[in-house]
């Protein structure tokens, strides 16, 4: 106990750098945003009046925010389950002791090293209706690729953005799930094999329960990323196609270059704080949903 007390100054000293960074770059802006959210100011933020906390409610209930919330949720539903399934699939495929498996692992995880901007640019060029390779090759079967283009069609734009997003996040999911798989004790598989369990049974009864902590982590991160996605929207669709604004997510409503609240920092702050709360709700719900199934091992 005494020893622990003596460690405190050291612990604090060690934590100061990261706590200072967190305080300056995360906590302070968050507090400031919460404050800003109930003000109404001129463009420079110098002359302000109190708009009341009701401003949060007005923003939340506004047509634009509700629309953006729906788009954000759709994007999460399109990207998270598919992202997890593909990530687990690839990880299971690569979890074999084969020759040159390292090459495949490198390829499968390579999108981690790809920035959102680069990934989006790649997909933008692939999907471009006039000069894109995909429209050249497949527009015979899928005319939408050419006219008006996957990213320009109200019905397909969000899915196209999701496709780019899933691809870009695949490497991350792959690495986390691979790490989870490697921590599964091999004896479990061996005894199941001896008991006559087939490969499907081994996957559902051993692999899945054992990698639950990884899956929980991956789905929470992917959901948060989906709710916060901005770069791919800005580069691929600009929130469009108009007039339906099919890909205007909450972050794009806030920061997008064609945002109609561009010069109103206070409304933008309120929307950003609401996005934080919504992400929090989703994370809590996912924790609850997974809770009983997550075994963190001994």
């Amino acid at each position: 106990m005494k020893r622990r007390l003596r460690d405190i100054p050291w612990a604090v000293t060690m934590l100061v750098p990261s706590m200072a960074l967190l305080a300056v770059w995360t906590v302070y802006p968050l507090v400031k945003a919460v404050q800003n959210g109930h003000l109404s100011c001129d463009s420079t933020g110098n002359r302000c009046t109190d708009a009341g906390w009701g401003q949060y409610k007005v923003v939340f209930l506004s047509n634009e925010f509700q629309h953006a919330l729906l788009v954000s949720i759709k994007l999460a539903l399109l990207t998270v389950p598919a992202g997890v399934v593909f990530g687990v699939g690839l990880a299971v495929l690569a979890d074999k002791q084969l020759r040159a498996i390292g090459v495949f692992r490198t390829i499968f995880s390579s999108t981690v090293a790809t920035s959102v901007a680069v990934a989006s640019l790649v997909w933008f060029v692939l999907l471009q209706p006039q000069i894109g390779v995909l429209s050249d090759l497949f527009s015979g079967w899928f005319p939408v690729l050419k006219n008006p283009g996957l990213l320009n069609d109200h019905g397909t734009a969000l899915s196209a953005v999701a496709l780019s997003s899933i691809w870009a996040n695949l490497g991350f999911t792959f690495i986390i799930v691979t790490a989870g798989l490697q921590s599964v004790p091999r004896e479990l598989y061996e005894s199941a094999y001896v008991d006559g369990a087939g490969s499907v049974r081994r996957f559902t009864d051993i692999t899945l329960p054992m990698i639950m902590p990884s899956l929980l982590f991956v789905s929470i991160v992917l959901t948060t990323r989906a709710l916060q996605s901005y770069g791919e929207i800005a580069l691929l669709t600009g929130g469009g196609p108009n007039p339906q604004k099919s890909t205007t997510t909450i972050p794009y409503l806030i920061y997008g270059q064609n945002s109609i609240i561009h010069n109103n920092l206070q409304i933008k702050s309120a929307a950003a704080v609401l996005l934080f709360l919504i992400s929090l709700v989703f994370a809590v719900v996912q924790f609850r949903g997974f809770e009983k199934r997550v075994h963190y091992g001994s």
Partner: protein
Amino acid sequence: MRRSSSRRSSSLFVLAALGLVAACSGGGSITNSGGTTTTAAAPGTGTPGTGAASTSAATTSTVPLDSLPGCPTDALASTTGTTTISFWHGMSGALNDELVKLTDAYNASQTKVKVKLVQGSYEQTADNYLQASQGNRPDLVQMPEYMVQSIIDTKSTVPVGKCIAASKFDTSAFLPSALAAYSTQGVQWSMPFNISNPVLFYNKKVFVAAGLDPNKPPQSLEELKADSQKIVSTGAAKYGIALESGFDSGGGWYVEQWFAKSEQFYLDGQNGRQARATKVLYNNQTGVDLLTYLQGLINDKLAVNVGDNSGSGYDNLLKMADAKEPAAMTINTSASLGPVLEVLKGGQFPQLTADDVGVGPMPGPDGKPGALIGGASLWVVNSGSDAKTAAAWDYLTYLVAAQQQSEWASTTGYIPVRTDATTLDPYKTTLATDPRFSVAFDQLKASPDAPTSAGPVVGPLREVRSVLATAVAAILNGADVKKSLDNAANQANALITDYNNRNG
């Protein structure tokens, strides 16, 4: 117990999602939030044609020059040593390289002033400038044209008109419309620096195939339609023109251009230049006629709508290079001419080579010439230091001098802000070698001497464009023209009222 738990969790996820949305259906526009009372009707619910702010009509006024900060342009003479000033700008890539080159030459040419460049995007520069305290602002700042009213409202700058007067600076060679773009209520607020305007790009080869004169692009909207009909009916190309609805192009900025070409105001208060604008006018007959015309081109399959032109901003130009279903023409900013020719010289598009590209003035109602300027201007910041103000002015006059404008225009593709720059090399040679580069300049020079030749100025200009772009997209997709414009006008007016309440 052993069933797929990921399915279970995703169904929870769906429930949570639906709960969030279901708990709150209905509500006003986000633009109606804020503590200040706005009288605007939510879009779609308002009476068509009644603007939110129609009760507070704009009145003519001029700003008394005496009330604005002075410009002691001779302060530099009494300084000893070097005055260092900072210049925030939004030029990137090749544009940044050229600005650095010009600035290095300036710094090396004398010892009194040293300029430090701080580069960001237009948006970053604008946001940083607005949010910074006066002490943290630069001494000179470049702002895009849509920021004019916002910067005036910060009351943080020295109007360049005062510097022009104090130093007896000769502006006679400047394009009048370029100066007018940065002047309101009798005050010259900032100095045009890099300017561009929209021009017509067309495929000469298609014109020849359609039996049209490849050196006579359409001047009027009627000719544009007639030429398109000929192009489509002869099968020279699938479409006459590629239209788009980007907010800083076909969906917003071009509509402002067409209003100016019709000698019509886009905003009240004479485009916000005689008095603070309170509402948009684009849902009037001029706007309805124009958008009905564009919708007609689409309906008659003479034009193709390429959407919002998001991402690269080149979807409309690429439509001209489409191998299967090309368009013969499109409208794009003159600033893109250099990059477009550069790309086409690569030879990737056999159906459209660099030599095939023709450039004509932007077609307008009745073929009237003229254009509004795009690009950005230079603002002298009121730093409180006479020496810095004088230094900023000295550097500014260097950047807009004929020789520098000639160099700037020939490398960047912008149009020089003054006529005498076209008589100096290297720009003189550029024009002589390729007359396509002079189209935008000639078009601007031909702008009528009318108050409508200075474009709209209003605090939330960008947001107003964005709202209109949504309506234009709906119209190009077949929506009712008048109703769409009325809805957009209501929403735009709410934005303007809200801005004026906060900043007026």
